[in-house]
């Protein structure tokens, strides 16, 4: 894994921790961006962690680009000696898999899909050698996911499943992007899951929908009053499969301002994870039960 630094014009430095996705690359990015945030360097205006890279925006009238680059590289050296431990939180996200709304949308754009005769979830189950829709739901919701990036549009999380590479669910994006995706669709492209925070265009496979809003610019949703976006990079997500009844009930509770997501603090260690993936995941998910 070699870290590559490059300027994005006169206002950005783009740092690629690794060309390929891995939890190690994500962690390298998280530790350098955390160190950078704590360093409070004058002139830094935006610090954006991404999946296997990150980006810094700075004001070159306050800090010269070469000086910004020098300070960033110094932080990388310091971050490397730090333990790969993250104090974060786990959030349970209810998902109504194989729901009627993403199904209907999928049918409308079928000619843009690799396999027009099946559905997104059936297709992805098949190419990943999973046992149909039930086998897919088990694999998808059986292990937690890291929010490895928030972006594209406001509040949209990209998620990376915390399993061995050979257990990662992978699927191509649509051949041509759709012009419509229901709000709160749980999608998948490459090795990443996402939740569409707003309705709009999209190219990811659609597997289900969550009743839980994750972006609310009006901040009327009970748990989004402090801040309009729910997710931040480093959060851990556990999908909870639900049926139609619970979906409808949750939507009603959210609308009535009574619903709260289940969230618990959790510590994650990359070393512990490398030694025992399933044991670490079980411990991380267990944290939800106390809350």
């Amino acid at each position, binding site marked *: 894994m070699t870290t590559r630094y490059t300027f994005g*014009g006169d206002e950005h430095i*783009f740092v690629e921790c690794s060309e390929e996705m891995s939890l190690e690359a994500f962690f390298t990015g998280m530790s350098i961006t955390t160190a950078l945030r704590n360093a409070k360097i004058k002139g830094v205006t935006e610090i954006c962690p991404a999946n296997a890279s990150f980006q810094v925006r700075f004001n070159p009238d306050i800090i010269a680009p070469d000086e910004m680059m020098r300070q960033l590289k110094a932080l990388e050296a310091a971050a490397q000696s730090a333990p790969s431990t993250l104090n974060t939180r786990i959030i349970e996200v209810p998902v109504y898999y194989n729901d009627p709304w993403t199904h209907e949308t999928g049918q409308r754009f079928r000619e843009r899909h690799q396999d027009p005769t099946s559905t997104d979830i059936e297709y992805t189950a098949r190419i990943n050698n999973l046992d149909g829709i039930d086998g897919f739901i088990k694999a998808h919701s059986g292990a937690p996911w890291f929010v490895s*990036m928030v972006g594209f549009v406001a509040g949209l999380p990209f998620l990376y499943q915390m399993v061995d590479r050979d257990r990662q669910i992978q699927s191509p994006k649509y051949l041509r992007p759709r012009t419509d995706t229901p709000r709160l669709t749980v999608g998948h492209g490459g090795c990443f899951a996402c939740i569409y925070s707003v309705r709009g265009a999209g190219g990811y496979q659609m597997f289900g929908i969550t009743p839980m809003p994750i972006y609310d610019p009006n901040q009327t949703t009970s748990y989004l009053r402090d801040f309009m976006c729910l997710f931040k990079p480093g959060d851990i997500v556990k999908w909870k499969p639900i049926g139609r009844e619970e979906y409808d009930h949750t939507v009603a509770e959210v609308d009535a301002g009574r619903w709260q997501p289940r969230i618990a603090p959790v510590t994650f260690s990359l070393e512990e994870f490398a030694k025992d993936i399933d044991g670490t995941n079980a411990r991380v998910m267990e944290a939800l039960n106390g809350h």
Partner: protein
Amino acid sequence: MAINVLKPGLSTTVQDLGRPGYYHIGIPTSGGMDTLSLAAANLLVGNDAGAAVLEAVFMGPELEFTQDAMVAVTGADLPPKVDGQEQPCWTAFKVKKGQVLSFGFLKKGARGYIAVSGGIDVPVVLGSRSTYTLGALGGFEGRKLAAGDVLPVGKGAFVAEGRSVAEALRRAPGAPAELRMLPGLYWHRITEQAGKTFFEDTWKVAPEADRIGYRFKAGRPLDFVPRTPPFGAGSDPSNIVDACYPYGSVQVPSGTEPIVLHRDAVSGGGYMMIGTVVSADMDLIGQLQPHTPTKFVKVTMEQALTARADRRKTLEAIAKALA
């Protein structure tokens, strides 16, 4: 004081100098695409350079004033009219209570900035009044203006009528438009030959050109250096593991049509970028009409910083002349 929107124009939004600080959660800076013109319009009517104005694209709105105000229109050559009487651009003029501000046909440029003394006083959201339509955030109810909207206006300072910005201080794209670009990011992914043709070719602004980004076409496609796709990137040679996109970055999906991201940028995605348009030339992109011939000009960091300093000096000269 308020302004009644009689006709909204094509896509008129409230914008100021933007909302930095939230790009890491996908909320872009927004703000005027041509911020130099936006600042000039404000200074003409006695506002702070960063007050909220209306950004009108291709076609002006029709606005009824409920009180006297000073107004200035900068950026595109979009001739303002007060009760049908044409007024000069880049010049402060008075609109009296009950009068209607409308616009003639666009002659040059793409975006007009309409500043009103006191500024458009919509609520400040995350530090800015700018509209981010994709996220339904800020501005007037998070969207472009519609007929029947009533825009609140702040209390203005008194300034004299007829103040104007000297022609030499108005910046506009040339013909062809030239956008200076610093190569970098994933430049190594394209072949040496592709790197040459990219700068040689004259591109044309595609119809898909908005506040998110400007697409260009008509240049030769770019060839890629062969590779084994990295895990998680995707199979197209232009794919990368989804990453952040700098403002002004030039992505080229499948090597065919470059897209320059602007103030309402999608904050990240899975396409490689070959460089970034320098900060000083972002204003110019906001004034490009579809089909405008455009060349990308390769520059060094030193040249990018000189361009930035030149732009700042222009703004300082405008501010000094109007102080």
